């Protein structure tokens, strides 16, 4: 994540040599970088993909910390600082999206800035002034540019420094099941340093290969005429929020409910260490928090995919309840079944409290497959219910939806049974 930030910094400074933050020249200067500057297209694409990587890695880090209960005492403030860093990363994405002044980015930013006007009291006026100035395009672009290249990097660097200091004070978090006997400490030099150098090289190589395979292509320049023919759509990491805002209940003045509900979720997540004060950190002993965490991940994936598939389409309340409720229901049922089975499995005497080596090796892949199956199951179950309830349902579509649901659920149960059998959810014997 830190490396992605430095790649952002270096490529960003290189782009600053040519980029002009004015309404007339923002698009043409970006196009000039891509088409005329030597390696300009590569630098632009690297900047974009490292931003994507930063958002993705920040989210993965957040969820990893959540599941290993890293927020618990004495690391409460580290969690809060980490959450603030996550918000800064999202702000980077929002401000950077506008800078090329394309029709898609400008239209999506207008929607986001327009939403600020619905904030209660003077809050909306202040927020709008901070990000959009007088309201003209020129002041909006200049403010986003200043926030993107000065304010946000400064804030992120300060927060990074604070977090590194806290890391020095508290040290790395121990595994929830405790440190295994025979575990040795790893010296910073050369072992850890070489390991980091290896990871960084692989990361940069992947970024370069992805940039060459899928180079950035700029959408048309923004103008009121072109904007009329385009559907405003944010970048992928805001698609979940975009999808929520398309619910019919949040249309018009109802948007205030979304503007209150979404920040409340963020505030609760930020202050989580002050709610979750129990000392238990093992997954097997925290069914409620684990289930809530999996629901969050599943809902985010489902809403993102759904938002991508239905651009500009207003979502009815019934569809929203079916998909969001269906996803949560699937997770709760699976979680309940998993914890119930866990109680029935007798703890093995030799390997209790830890995963078997074979499962540990495959755990990342199994987790990814499980989450994908979960997303597929949620969407297909919700669409099946929707098809049954609608008058003009297509039998073929309904059958394929049901088959896909059954397929996903079957393999999810297989994965869970495998994990339970391998001892992943057993309680560590004293």
């Amino acid at each position: 994540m830190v490396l992605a930030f430095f790649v952002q910094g270096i490529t960003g400074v290189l782009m600053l040599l040519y980029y002009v933050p004015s309404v007339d020249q923002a698009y043409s200067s970006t196009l000039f970088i891509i088409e005329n500057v030597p390696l300009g297209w590569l630098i632009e694409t690297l900047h974009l993909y490292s931003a994507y990587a930063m958002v993705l890695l920040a989210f993965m880090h957040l969820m990893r910390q959540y599941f290993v209960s890293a927020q618990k005492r004495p690391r409460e403030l580290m969690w809060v600082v980490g959450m603030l860093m996550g918000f800064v990363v999202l702000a980077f994405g929002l401000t950077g999206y506008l800078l090329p002044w394309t029709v898609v980015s400008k239209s999506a930013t207008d929607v986001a800035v327009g939403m600020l006007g619905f904030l209660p009291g003077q809050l909306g006026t202040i927020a709008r002034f901070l990000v959009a100035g007088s309201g003209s395009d020129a002041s909006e672009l200049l403010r986003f540019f200043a926030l993107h290249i000065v304010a946000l990097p400064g804030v992120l660097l300060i927060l990074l420094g604070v977090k590194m200091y806290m890391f020095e004070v508290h040290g790395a978090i121990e595994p929830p099941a405790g440190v295994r006997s025979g575990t040795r400490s790893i010296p910073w030099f050369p072992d850890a340093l070489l390991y980091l150098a290896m990871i960084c090289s692989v990361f940069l190589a992947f970024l370069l290969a992805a940039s060459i395979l899928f180079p950035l292509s700029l959408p048309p320049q923004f103008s009121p005429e072109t904007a009329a023919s385009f559907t405003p759509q944010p970048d992928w990491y805001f698609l979940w929020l975009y999808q929520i805002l398309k619910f019919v209940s949040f249309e018009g003045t109802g948007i205030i409910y979304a503007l209150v509900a979404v920040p409340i979720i963020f505030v609760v997540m930020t202050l989580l260490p002050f709610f979750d004060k129990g000392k238990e950190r093992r997954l097997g002993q925290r069914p409620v928090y684990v289930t809530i965490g999996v629901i969050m991940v599943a809902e985010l994936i489902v809403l993102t995919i759904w938002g991508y598939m239905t651009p500009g389409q207003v979502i009815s309340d019934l569809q929203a309840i079916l998909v969001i409720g269906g996803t949560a229901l699937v997770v709760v049922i699976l979680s309940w079944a998993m914890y119930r089975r866990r109680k029935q499995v007798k703890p093995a005497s030799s390997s209790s409290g830890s995963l078997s080596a074979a499962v540990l090796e495959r755990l990342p892949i199994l987790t990814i497959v499980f989450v994908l199956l979960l997303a597929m199951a949620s969407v297909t179950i919700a669409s099946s219910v929707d098809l049954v309830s609608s008058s003009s349902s297509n039998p073929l579509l309904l059958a394929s939806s049901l088959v896909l649901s059954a397929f996903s659920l079957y393999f999810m149960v297989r994965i869970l049974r495998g994990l339970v059998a391998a001892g992943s959810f057993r309680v560590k014997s004293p």
Partner: protein
Amino acid sequence: MKLNEAGTRSLASAALVTFLAVVAVYLWLIDILTMQKQFGAFLAAELTAFAMLLYLYRRPIHGEFKKQWFLAGCLFLAFCLALTIL
């Protein structure tokens, strides 16, 4: 191929060092203005080879050396080289 044997590791390391040196010289001599895509792909290959060399050189943190990781590196290296001619 047994990566836990010192002789095999030395041989693989020597091959990677040679590859790194050749590609570094090529990157130095290449005309960036006309071969931008090739430059990027060779740079990705150079970084991958460097990561593989570090993997062989450093002491393993998580258990023994895994042949699968090394083979994955070889495949990605081949992919990067294929990108230079695509």
